[in-house]
């Protein structure tokens, strides 16, 4: 499988890309061989997505060129890329929410026309869905807007593998698993390995280093717009990856307990899911980190939203005291304000505190933005730049900063680590712990079981109900998975 | 004579109610109609006004009135020609259609109007009497594309041929509305040479006066309509010897149209085109009239059945 032996499917030579004064890519060389999966990692804003956008023909490089099958491409466009068998699942969702899954498949294929196109499109995508995500539960005639974010991601991935009249040689997957739960992510990765074995090529981008280490043949590490390492996957391990990416090599899983007796602290949240049978309810004591686990879409987000809407006084089956803030997971639809600067996106959650007299003080606003830029390392030359100029992970960091900068005592996190790089994650875990120690309470829904290890107490959800609760000492991945699936079809 | 119409239903189709002229018109129709019902001259009199001024809305209204089985529709039309389709449908359903003020061109309908052309000519003649030396004129036009505007403008143009001492240096659109007139005149006044007179279509004279005052230009002789504010302004100016003339169509024309419809239903021969006199006031008689007009209103004259018959048969 060594790249030097197999013929190159596509390669990038000396690619540079500028956005105004920002140099996103500083001369990158990258090749992919036939039947090879290249893992691409790097910190948030390293330039991975930009590089892939160049390869897929979406962005024109400022310098450098694209070679496909050994031929330099004079003109390069999405259309040409597709014609030569290169496809990309972009980091930000590329489906049209107002169309059905089948119709979205039609959008992807110029050749899907004429009588019976809808049925053919539906069959194509249905087949791929069945093949990649057995038991997916998606009907191709459902509108995408009616699908959960995880299912949208599944539909988009499946769509990328449908074939009509164009060849399929290289598929770029830009953080395909960030919205998927562990099971569906596993399904996708094993499908990818099967296709690699058949000779297809992949570029896989992910911040879950385990995925990269376990599924790539070769790993390329990017840092600040350059490749800093390019080697066989076997030559890497987690620590080396983190080191190459430029993170301080924290000892992972340093989830030291507080040693606090639960009942000793006052209760600050009590919430019963709407459809709950029995008398289980979610209870959080002041200063605790509470995990919400289970498969995606089983009522965790709904409960967090209900708690948010009940703030600050509570109501219905929810009691709580103190202001609440929320870190959304679906940053495109629930998080960012696209025409605002990064600074404004952060300060919108704490405007009251920034007032001087009746007016918002620009000086304080700037100060707050800069404090959080440093604290959470948002990669930008200027916090007054538009939020959309940030890489996906950095946008997510800004949303974190928004919640943490506010005066909220209870912080709800709706699977918030999507697309955040490993070293930032470790920093954020630290910050969460510090803040919890200061008395803030966190309710943390996560699809990454590892993250539950940071929680003091975990509630497992199934079908909109709490089906199990595990204290820190009792938590194992097995138990979580067991309760998530127990009796479920 | 009433026996033939006691069981008849008459509807008024109208497309706008928001100014004093239309209000007076509606009131005239309603009061005369109500009395006719009380006197058992007709069975039912109803008034319908559309929510917008759009032509198709009124066309649809007429079609719905056909479905309501009225015997006659009295019509103040939003367009002289574009209601023809609906009017023809009404006619072929056996309904009498009498149009007034803004009339329709469809031959099956009756048309009642004042002689706008004469009104325009007379205006120029009056102006020539007041400003014998002649000079520059400003013309204020009515709603573009309406027959009323075209006729009054035609009359003015014809009249001016007899008085070459006048020259219209600019014409602006006033839409018979004081605000519109004031706005548009304000916009052009700075660029105009001295103006001795303003020829207009009525309803816009007060706005013209305000525009001249605001621009601090000398007050020309402004031909007025019969709105209360126009006549009241005239009365004010009169104190320093200001002289002018006013004319317009009386809103009471709706009551005349009502009687025309009733007479036709009664089987009386009525000519298809009827012209009634316009209402004009001079320096001598306008103050007497002014007292009778409500504040912000307009001069009007209701017709009785006898009065209407007199005019109909005179033709």
């Amino acid at each position: 499988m060594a790249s030097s032996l197999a013929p190159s499917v596509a390669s990038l030579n000396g690619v540079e890309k500028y956005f105004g004064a920002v140099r996103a890519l500083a001369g990158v060389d990258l090749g992919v061989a036939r039947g090879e999966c290249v893992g691409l990692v790097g910190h948030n804003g390293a330039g991975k997505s930009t590089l892939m956008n160049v390869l897929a023909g979406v962005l024109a490089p400022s310098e450098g060129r694209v070679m496909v099958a050994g031929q330099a491409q004079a003109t390069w466009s999405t259309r040409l890329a597709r014609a030569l068998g290169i496809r990309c699942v972009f980091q930000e969702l590329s489906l049209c929410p107002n169309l059905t899954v089948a119709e979205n498949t039609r959008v992807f294929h110029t050749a899907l026309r004429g009588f019976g196109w809808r049925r053919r499109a539906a069959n194509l995508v249905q087949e791929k869905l069945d093949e990649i995500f057995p038991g997916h539960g998606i009907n191709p005639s459902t509108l995408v807007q009616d699908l959960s974010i995880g299912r949208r991601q599944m539909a988009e991935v499946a769509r990328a593998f449908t074939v009509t009249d164009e060849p399929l040689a290289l598929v770029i997957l830009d953080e395909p698993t960030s919205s998927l739960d562990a099971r569906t992510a596993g399904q996708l990765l094993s499908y990818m390995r099967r296709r690699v074995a058949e000779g297809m090529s992949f570029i896989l981008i992910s911040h879950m280093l385990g995925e990269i280490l376990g599924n790539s043949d070769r790993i390329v590490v990017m840092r600040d717009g350059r490749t800093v390492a390019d080697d066989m996957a076997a030559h890497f391990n987690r620590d080396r990856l983190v080191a190459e990416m430029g993170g301080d090599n924290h000892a992972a899983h340093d989830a030291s307990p507080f040693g606090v007796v639960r009942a000793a602290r006052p209760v600050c949240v009590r919430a019963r899911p709407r459809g709950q049978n029995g008398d289980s309810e979610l209870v959080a004591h002041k200063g605790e980190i509470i995990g919400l686990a289970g498969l995606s879409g089983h009522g965790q987000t709904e409960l967090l939203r209900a708690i948010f809407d009940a703030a600050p006084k509570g109501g219905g089956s929810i009691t709580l005291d103190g202001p609440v803030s929320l870190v959304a997971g679906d940053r495109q639809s629930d998080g960012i304000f696209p025409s605002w600067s990064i600074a404004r996106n952060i300060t919108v959650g704490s405007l009251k505190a920034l007032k001087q007299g009746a007016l918002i003080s620009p000086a304080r606003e700037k100060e707050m933005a800069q404090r959080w830029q440093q604290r959470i390392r948002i990669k930008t030359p200027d916090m007054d730049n538009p939020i959309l100029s940030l890489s996906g992970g950095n946008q997510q960091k800004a949303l974190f900063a928004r919640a943490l900068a506010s005066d909220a005592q209870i912080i709800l996190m709706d699977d918030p680590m999507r697309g955040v790089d490993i070293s930032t994650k470790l920093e954020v875990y630290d910050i969460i712990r510090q803040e919890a120690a200061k008395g803030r309470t966190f309710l943390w829904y996560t699809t990454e079981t590892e993250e539950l290890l940071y929680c003091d107490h975990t509630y497992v959800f199934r079908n909109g109900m709490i089906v199990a609760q595990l204290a820190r000492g009792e938590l194992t991945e097995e138990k979580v998975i067991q309760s998530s699936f127990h009796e479920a079809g | 004579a009433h026996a033939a119409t006691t069981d008849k239903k008459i509807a008024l189709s109208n497309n706008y109610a928001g100014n004093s002229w239309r209000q007076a018109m509606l009131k005239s129709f309603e009061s005369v109609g109500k009395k006719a019902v009380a006197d058992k001259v007709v069975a039912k009199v109803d008034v319908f006004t559309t929510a917008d001024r759009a032509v198709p809305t009124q066309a649809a209204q007429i079609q719905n009135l056909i479905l309501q089985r009225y015997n006659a529709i009295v019509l103040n039309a939003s367009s002289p020609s574009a209601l023809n389709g609906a009017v023809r449908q009404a006619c072929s359903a056996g309904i009498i259609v009498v149009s007034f003020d803004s009339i329709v061109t469809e031959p099956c309908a009756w048309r009642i109007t004042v002689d706008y052309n004469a009104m325009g000519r007379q205006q120029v003649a009056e102006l020539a009497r007041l400003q014998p030396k002649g000079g520059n004129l400003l013309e204020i036009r009515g709603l573009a594309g309406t027959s009323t505007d075209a006729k009054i403008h035609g009359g003015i143009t014809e009249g001016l041929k007899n008085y070459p001492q006048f020259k219209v240096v600019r014409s602006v659109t006033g839409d018979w509305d004081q605000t519109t007139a004031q706005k548009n005149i304000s916009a052009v006044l700075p660029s105009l040479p001295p103006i001795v007179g303003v020829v207009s279509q009525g309803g816009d004279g007060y706005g013209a006066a305000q525009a001249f005052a605001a621009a601090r230009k000398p007050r020309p002789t402004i031909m007025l309509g019969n709105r209360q504010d126009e006549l009241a302004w005239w009365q004010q100016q009169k104190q320093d010897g200001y002289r002018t003339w006013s004319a317009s169509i009386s809103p009471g024309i709706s009551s005349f149209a009502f009687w025309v419809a009733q007479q036709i239903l009664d089987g009386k021969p009525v000519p298809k085109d009827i012209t009634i006199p316009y209402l004009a006031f001079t320096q001598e008689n306008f103050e007497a009239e002014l007292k009778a007009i409500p504040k912000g209103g307009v001069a009007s004259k209701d017709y009785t059945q006898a009065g209407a018959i007199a005019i109909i048969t005179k033709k």
Partner: protein
Amino acid sequence: MEASAPRFGVAPLARTLLPAFSLALVLAAIATLNPFAISYMGFNLMLNLAIPIILATMAQLFVITGNDLDLSIGSFIGFVCCVAATWLTTDPLLGAGILLGSIIVYALLGALIHWRNLPSIVVTLGMSFVWQGLAVLVLPDPGGAAPEWLMTLMGFQPYFIPFPILAAIVVAAVTHFLLMGTSYGAILRASGGNAAAVARAGWSLLRIKMALFALAGLFGALSGLALIGITTSGDANIGSGYTLLAIAGVILGGGEFVGGRVSPIGAVMGALTLSLASSSLLTFMQVPPDWQVAANGAILIIVLAARALINRRKA
């Protein structure tokens, strides 16, 4: 298997059924007030002026599909009427050429909006003055006559099913097929949902925008032709009310301003509802004159509020 599935189960059904419910509500009210209206002849009279509204709504629908808004469709329809009442009658070839040219102008506007990334609302606002002005220039005074064949067509009385209902069904079927049935229709809608994704898949957004605007122009022209066929004679101001009606029809039919969420069948029903509610129902209710305009507003509110109640219960 996922818990979120049932939460969305009802929504798609409600989306398609709501416009039908509104329409049924209005029809029921009409049937109670004037049973005579629910007949072959009744539907002909109540609904034939809904045909141009339906076509105008479809024109607007195509523009809204691409996240734009056309504020000029009403005056464009007026322009088409004026051309049809003049050249199309006197010189059919020239008239047809002008109409074709104006559809091309529409497509070019789409190109301009895409090319310069302009806010469509400003461009079409400007164009509304252009079309209106051209209409006044083509037909300075109301009048002209529609071509014979158009009047015959709009007066068509098919066996059993009233023509307006037949026309509504045909228009709904054709636009539904164009947008929802054809494979390029999916692309047109996709451009409103996520334009970047469509471009990445290799489609030309320029061509899509041109296609949407050309379709808007085509249906706008059809609307103008239908209108002149009914009114039989032209007027430069005839279309002005259609811009808002068309937008309201699309929204009432379940469309949204952004996101490419539109429903042709819903919009046809929305347009029917609007034209019935604001005309027939209003006329049959016999409201006192002062409050007729208010009644029009109240009917709209009741229809929509009832819709919202159903919506809430189902959601």
